[in-house]
């Protein structure tokens, strides 16, 4: 699972997909996750990173990350190479 390579993500949480022309905005947790995904981190690694930084438990976070990735897939921002 990879974030599409051409996609531009800024630190401010603005995402631009040059292939579709669509832009998106992210909240801070979303920005962080998408940047970790871009660094090829696994979901487990992302979870550890977020839990160490934010006031959230594993169960809640796992549920939210799965849902978030589903949204990214819907927007065609993720290449699934499984």
């Amino acid at each position, binding site marked *: 699972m990879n974030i599409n390579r051409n996609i531009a993500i800024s630190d401010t949480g603005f*995402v631009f997909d040059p292939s579709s022309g*669509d*832009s*998106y*905005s*992210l*909240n*801070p*947790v*979303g920005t*962080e*996750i*998408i940047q970790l995904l871009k660094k090829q981190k696994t979901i487990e690694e992302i979870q550890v990173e*977020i839990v160490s*930084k*934010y*006031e*959230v438990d594993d169960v*809640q*976070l796992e549920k*939210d*990350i799965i*849902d*978030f990735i*589903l*949204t*990214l897939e*819907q*927007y065609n*921002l993720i290449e699934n190479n499984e």
Partner: protein
Amino acid sequence: MEKLIYERPLIKKLVTGMPNKFGMKTVNEPISHIENISVKELLEKYGSPLYVISEKTIRKVFKTAKRAFETRYPKVQFAWSYKTNYLNSVCNVYHQEGSWAEVVSGFEYDKAIGNGVDGNHILFNGPDKSEADLTKAIKNGSYIHIDNFDELYTIVKLVDEIKEKPKLAIRVNMDTGIFPQWDRFGFNYENGEAWKALNQILMNEKLELVGLHCHIGTYIMKTDAYAVAASKLAELAVRIKNKFNKNIKYIDLGGGFASKNTLKGAYLPASDTVPSFDEYAEAISNALLTSELEPQHMPTLILETGRALIDDSAYLLGTVQAIKRLADGRRSMIIDVGVNLLFTAFWYEHTITPAQPFSQYTEDTVIYGPLCMNIDVIRENINFPLLKKGDNFVINRIGAYNMTQWLQFITLRPNIVMIDLEGKVHIVRERETNENITNSERLPMHLQKK
């Protein structure tokens, strides 16, 4: 290092022509406390969901309304509209403030008597009055506001049996320039029916006409409509004076003042469009004072406003049960408050505010109640902060009609607490138990488990 506040990750497509987060923020600050009492603590102690009533707000709003009218008109009397909220604790706050009782059924009438209201401080309105109810009201010297000719004939018949002179008013309906025109209650002004009914009462020596009543509608945002209503009733009063040389004691303009809840389909929020008590008072007082009524015999002005007095005084607190995604990708949030407890969600776009801090990020959300019924929708489409299971929220302005029109449907009704003037919390209605509901049921023998 202290951890950061977590909100679920969010990605939002920026759609052309659609506002972004700066355009759609509808609430600024969380409501973490109600009169310095923590929302979380209230829910922990009294359970979720929970109705919270503020005695302080009730009294404050009442005083504002009273002042608005009393500074403009010499004789003013409020009568608390029982159907809006007939919890005894609420009614008694109003009675302490000097309100009479305005009731529309035998049940409400008995409740008022039970609250210690004098019979001659009760206005009995509406089409639902049995002979037994009328008899009681006549004997207690209550004011009966007649709805139709059948009721008038019933009273005439009862008077022969009771031998007491009933105090009567008629309800008048009329065109005040608003839509819809309520013509199902009372006698019509324009077609002469009201005048005919008044003549019948005034020509009957066994009856006493004391007042004129109208109630032009509900959630009326045009103060002009009240001015029209007041002028028409004043005109009737003058005609009565001219023909029968009788001064009526009061003109009752009913209720219908809007609260600051926004109706579905309205473009601007009600807090920006609804008239203040001062504006209503100005229109009504002006119409009466500039009428042909004799200055030395000005009738008392009675007001039965309910919604505008109580709505701001109560809150519904609750908890998020689940966040899920709908088939079309929209977000939905399930809360433990359904239309069973928030009946007014059928016509208002209620303001829902998180009880804990939240960021400026929002998502298009549908808010559902917990009932297993498709109609259980609290907000169809709201840009809402990112809450998670277990988070709390506050729905404000729910004091009117929810604690009377609620449904015992699927589940039991929760505790209602009142915060008194000293900040003490009292349970004023206990949460229901299974026994409360099943005690009045009877199971035929052949259906009982052997």
